[in-house]
């Protein structure tokens, strides 16, 4: 089962391995990202971040969806990390997810970026994905388990 879907362009990083892996009741972190899964060096670097007692997997988005549809995944408590709104939307639709946590997304250097929350911005293409996400699930942003919980629903509706 999916415990949380988090969109974070940094994928697995310090805040995930230290804070989130303890705050959420999870046994597995699945990093669903085509770029990372297809680059051996990035993949190894992400696997170095494996917290004690947890499983970490780095797979393409398509492979990740296949994995999560395997009946053996039902008993696992999985934290899914995706790197962009397009992939997040794909998971939301594929698994009828009720919510998605929007974290860091600031690296894309296209024009016409609008701020969605302090650490996330979107260009026209991404905004369309965010708005579609918002029409089928609850969209919020929380960087750390202890940091402010920001509701994004109303804001996305108005954008």
């Amino acid at each position, binding site marked *: 089962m999916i415990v949380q879907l988090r969109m974070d362009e940094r994928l697995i990083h310090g805040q995930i391995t230290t*804070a989130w892996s303890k705050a959420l009741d999870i046994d597995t972190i699945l990093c669903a990202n085509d770029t990372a899964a297809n680059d051996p060096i990035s*993949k190894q670097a992400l*696997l170095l971040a494996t917290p004690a007692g947890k499983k970490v997997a780095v797979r393409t988005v398509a492979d990740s969806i296949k994995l999560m549809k395997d009946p053996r995944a039902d008993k696992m408590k999985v934290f899914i990390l995706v790197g962009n709104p397009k992939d997040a939307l794909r998971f939301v639709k594929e698994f009828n997810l009720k919510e998605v946590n929007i974290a860091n997304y600031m690296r894309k250097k296209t024009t016409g970026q609008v701020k969605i929350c302090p650490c996330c911005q979107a260009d026209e293409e991404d905004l369309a994905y965010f708005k579609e996400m918002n029409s089928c699930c609850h969209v919020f942003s929380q960087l750390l388990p202890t*940091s402010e919980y920001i509701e994004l629903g109303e804001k996305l509706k108005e954008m």
Partner: protein
Amino acid sequence: MSKIFLSTHGKMASGMKSSIEVLLGNCEVLTVYDAYVDGKEDTLKEEVESFLAACKPDESKLLISDMLGGSVNQVLSQYANHKNVFVITGITLSLLLELVTQCFDNFTKDSLENTIINAREMTKLVIMEPVISDDDFF
């Protein structure tokens, strides 16, 4: 409950607190003191005493420094036999993170030794080896 006092040569202590707060958010259990900064008067002893005085008698108190044999650790070591006080040296960010997240409970000598052994595993030479897996599942 437990409380932590961290002191180091220079600004490593406040720097580590800043790192901890990036990773975990606000951290009230951690008190820091940068020793010997900018010719500032050395008030380490006073800082330790006021930290200990502010803690409850039955909670465990960790006094942590950067380096074995350093003068900061020499000062902190003088409190090693006080009740519910533990002195740790050679701090790393991994160890401090682990200790901070365990502060909801009291520490024991055994729990601390265990935590230190685990954190030592996090200091290592990073060798990148190809990940080979035939498993089609996780």
